[in-house]
Structures are given as C-alpha cells and as structure tokens.
C-alpha cells in the first residue's frame, strides 16, 4: 500500500549507477523511529541493492526513542549487517553507538540529520537543520514583505536539533532588521492532538497579531497547514517543512507559501552507495568540499530546497536532479579509493 510513492525516482536514479557488482556489503538504514519522512528510504534501499549489488534494508525501531534505536542497531549487528546509515536518535547520544560500530570496523554515517562532532560517523548526508530553518524563515520574511510578526512551531525540546532551529529562526529574524519580531515559540508538539490544541489556541489568542508562521517539525507543519485551511486564512503567511501531502496541497491552494523540502530518497540511495565504497576500502577525503554546520565539519547537503506553489508539482524531479548531481561527483569529491 505504501510502496510506489517514490518509484519513478528509483528508475531515474538507477540510470546513473552503472552496472551492479556483487559485494558483501549489508547496509541497514535505520531511522529514529516510525515516521512518514523516512518512507522513501525503503525504496532507496531497494534501488541501491539492485543497482550496486549490495544488500540494503530499511529497518525501523518500534518507537521514537534513542534506546529503542540503539537496541535495533545492536541487534542488526548481530544479524550480520556491516554498514549503517542512521538518523541520529539524539545528535549527541547516537555517537556512542556509532563509536562501538567503528570498534567492530563497521562503518556508519549519519543520514538526514547529523551527529555532533567528534563523531565516528564517516559523514553526515542530509539536511543542515539549522540552515533549513534559517532559509525557511528568510523565505517567510520575504513573503511577508520584509516585516511583521512571526510565530515558530517546532518539535520536542529535548531534541538537540530543536534548539538549533529555534536559534536559526532567531538569527534570520535578527538579520531582517527591526521590522520582524518573533512573538511566540511553541515547542513539544510532535503529537497531533496537542499540536492541534496549542496551535489553534495560539491562532485564537494572537491570530490577528501574527503575520507569518514558520514550522520546523513535521506534525506542527501538517497541523498548522490544516488550521489555516480551516480558517480560510490567506493573510497569515506560512512556510512549512517536509513533504506531507497536507502541506503540499495547502501550498497548491495558496494557504501555505512553501515548504523546506529535503531529499530522503537521495539520502538513502547515495548513502548506501557510499557505504559500499567505504566497505571496499575507500576512505573519506579530508580536503573534500565538506560543508561546516553547527554540528559537524563533515556535512554533505543532500539537497534542501524551498518549494513554493510554482514548483510543488514537480519538486520530485528537482530532487532527482540534486541526487544525480551529487552522485555524479560523489566518489571523486569525497572518497579516496585505491
């Protein structure tokens, strides 16, 4: 029921990979927990397995908890997986597990989000969460015409990424000069019912004061988009995050200005490819075109793009283009292979 969403991508991406070769690489793609964001990883894993002649599997921890994810990874090692692509359950906490993997000569990389340096992850391929939030806020401020009051809805405070996002939004606002002001930050609304309760309470109390909404977590984006649609409010501008259908259709219908899209399929596909090469003896190049983020010095952008109403219909093609682009030069840019 859930397959097929990203299938076209797989076909496209397969074209650039070249002929498959047998390899003993067995990659596990482990998200932080069950979450729709990662669904594309499953297809990416399947495509990578077919294209590179490796085994690649998408394995989801039972719940969104660091300890569950750690248990998952440990049990996968016992099952013979020898390379890991992990969305860090905690940007700090996941390091210990990756270090242990390294001690067993099992390479790993952080996918979609980064671990904090120093880390055993070979690289971080994904989204610079801070930059994404920063750019999204910039887009929002532009949509609001350069001034106004904004609100920021985000996820669990205990997630280190949440603080980066809060700071990034503050930074973007500060750079906009005195015309923009953050009037409220609502956090800890990763569950849908509390999100609905709090976002609507906010709109009730300050809906008339606020000019723009930036959301930096999946559920708040969905709920805020739904609320604006229900209110029929197109005055309040909004920039969301990720590719939930609710958000995308709200963009098409003009209730949301745009969303900060990521490239989960590309992450899974390129990540698997890189893991296989590393397993075959390649090492990471120190003087590669790494990007520096607040968390790590070994960041590779998997493609973060602002998608508005004009691009929303064919954003997938855009992401494929980004994937192709990274794939084309990845080996030469980032790896030293003998």
């Amino acid at each position, binding site marked *: 029921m859930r397959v097929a969403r990203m299938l076209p991508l797989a076909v496209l991406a397969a074209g650039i990979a070249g002929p498959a070769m047998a390899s003993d690489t067995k990659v596990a793609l482990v998200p932080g927990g069950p979450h729709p964001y990662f669904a594309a990883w499953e297809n990416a894993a399947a495509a990578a397995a077919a294209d590179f002649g490796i085994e690649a599997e998408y394995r989801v921890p*039972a719940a969104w908890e660091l300890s569950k994810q750690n248990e998952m990874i440990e049990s996968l090692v016992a099952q013979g997986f020898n390379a890991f692509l992990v969305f860090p359950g905690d940007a700090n*906490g996941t390091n210990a597990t990756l270090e242990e993997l390294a001690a067993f000569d099992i390479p790993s990389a952080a996918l979609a989000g980064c671990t904090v340096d120093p880390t055993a992850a070979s690289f971080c391929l994904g989204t610079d969460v801070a930059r994404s939030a920063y750019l999204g806020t910039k887009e929002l401020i532009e949509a609001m015409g350069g001034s106004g009051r904004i609100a920021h809805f985000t996820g669990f405070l205990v997630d280190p990424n949440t603080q980066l996002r809060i700071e990034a939004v503050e930074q973007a606002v500060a750079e906009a000069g005195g015309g923009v002001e953050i009037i409220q930050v609502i956090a800890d609304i990763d569950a849908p019912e509390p999100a609905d309760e709090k976002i609507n309470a906010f709109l009730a109390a300050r809906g008339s004061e606020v000019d723009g909404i930036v959301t930096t977590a999946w559920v708040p984006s969905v709920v805020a988009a739904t609320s604006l649609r229900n209110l029929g409010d197109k005055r309040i501008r909004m920039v969301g995050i990720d590719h939930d259908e609710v958000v995308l259709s709200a963009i098409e219908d003009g209730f949301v200005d745009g969303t900060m899209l990521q490239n989960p399929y590309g992450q899974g596909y390129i990540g698997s490819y890189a893991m296989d090469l590393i397993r075959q003896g390649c090492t990471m190049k120190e003087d590669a075109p790494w990007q520096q983020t607040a968390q790590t010095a070994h960041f590779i952008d998997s493609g973060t793009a602002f998608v508005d109403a004009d691009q929303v219909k064919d954003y997938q093609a855009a992401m494929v283009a980004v994937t192709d682009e990274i794939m084309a030069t990845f080996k030469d840019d980032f790896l030293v292979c003998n």
Partner: protein
Amino acid sequence: MATATTGRGGRGALGLLASNEVGLALLIAVLVAIFATVNPGFTSPFNLFALSRVMGIDMVIGLSMMVVLVTGGLNLAVGSIGVASVMLGGWAMQVAGVPVLPSMTLAVAFGAFLGWINGQLTVRMGVHSFIVTLATMSLFFGAMIVATRAEAFNALPRSFVDLGKLRYGGFVSGMLPLALIVGLGLWLFFNRTSLGREILAAGANPQAAELSGVRVNRTIVVAHALSGALGALAGLMLAARNGAALPSMAGHIGMGWLLPAFLAPVLGGTLLTGGVVSVAGTVLGAAMVTIITNGLLQLQIGEFWVQMCLGLILLAAVLLDRARSVIAERRRSVA
C-alpha cells in the same frame, strides 16, 4: 533469591514450581533456546554484550519502580528524576570539573532528594502518589529543561564513559553485574533490615503497621527517596552507555522509561497493591523483556510488525505464567 514475605519454604519441588521466579527463569530459558536456535547471531559476543547492557539498565529502572510499588504507590517520575539527576551529574563532571565518583554520588543523592520531595508531597498532601508524581514528572523535567536549556553534556570524562564499555569475559557488560549487585542489596534491604521489613508491612496494611509502631509516613518517604536514587543510578548507567548526559534519554518528560519500569516488577510478581516484593522476579522480568525484544528484532519479521509480536509474546508469557501457577496450586492442594 526468593520472595521476601511469603514462606514457600519446605514444600519441595511443587512449592518451587509454584514460585513466580522459577516460572520466569524457565520461560527465559525456553526463549533463549528458541532465539539461539533460530538466529545464531543471538549468542554472538557482540549481541550478548549489547543485550546484557540493556538488561542491566532496565533492571535498575524496574527496581526503581519496584521500591515504590511496594508501598502501594507508583512513581511516574522515575524517568524525570533519572534525567534531571544525570544532567546535574553531567554538569558537575563536564562544567564544574568535579571528579567522576563525587559527581556520580552527587547525581544519586540528587535523585534521592527529588524522590524525597515526591514522598513528602505524597505524605503531606495525603494524595495518591500517582497524582503527585504525575505533576512532579512535569515539574522536575521542566526544571531540568529550564536549567540546561535542553543542551546535552557530551564531553564527559573518559573514565565515566568507559564504564559503559566495561566488559567481562568478552561478552558481559559491566552494567549487568552492577544491576545484580543493586538487586542483591535491595533483597537484603527488604529481608534483612528492620527498615525494609517495615516498608513492606506498611505497604501491606498501613493501619496495622501504624498501630504496631511503624512510622508509615517515613517508610513512604524512604521508599520514594530510594526510588529516586535508583532512578538516578539507572540514568548514570544510561549516560555512560550513551557517552553523554542527554535531556532526551528517557523520552518526552521521562515517559520512555515507564514501560520497562512497570513491566519488570509486574511480570516479576510484585503486587501493585503493595506489601509484596520480589526482587529476583523484577530482575528476571527485566531480563525476559529485554531478551524478547532483542530476539524479536533479529527474526526476519517485517520491521513494522515487531511491536505487535512483542505484545503477543508478552501476553503469551503472562498467560503461560498464570497457567503454571494455577496448575502448581492445584497440584499442591491435591497433594
């Protein structure tokens, strides 16, 4: 280790079979046999190490809940206390430069202090500890978030982090013996000290205990403080394992710990109504749950169905255990 209060002694094999602990041990043996046969990776040193480490931590979490269940109360704030204490310990180690051992002691003492607050509130307000700890769960966690701005301490001293990597015989994590020592200590506490006995008496029948000269309120406060200390200890173990003191390590407001905290003692035969404790049962209960979780993850089940299988096996385990005790009871009454 047998249960503390019921005298099952002197009834031979049937009496032994009737005990919850033996039933759990048998179940565990069967599960291990099955998992080891189906998946050879289960008995690999790496997996045994990882398994024993999670087991040790979950045992201490379970014991932390157990000592409050004994009083007939609950401690929903175990996770909050664990995280709050560890963040203090992490701060002491990383920022204040306090040596590792004093920092750990400080964290445990702080856990005990937070538990003591729970106990005092429960006793003073005369409200069920459920509602008190429901509130303090948010309170302690919120205070921790405010104090730390939710930032992790990720540069803890090597000697502390290495505790998480401690390994005996190549495959046993240091966490497991530590948990067993804590368990032994608690067993001695409940069976071999006057205070432990008084806590049990007060948990079973507060009126009778009060009239017999037991300071019931004090036993409640002590149990909560002990629970807090154990929560902090579990937190330290987890922090050593994660190599960092993380605000997120027990999930949102510490609720991530509640499941292991309740499962272990309840499977182990500790009554929710209080007064009966089974330290060995709690330890075995935690062992069983971690073994099931670990074993299931390794079976080739569609990953989205693992949780349902976990539920089914738990239910089956509970039912089997019940059937065993009913049959044993019947045999005994015939004999």
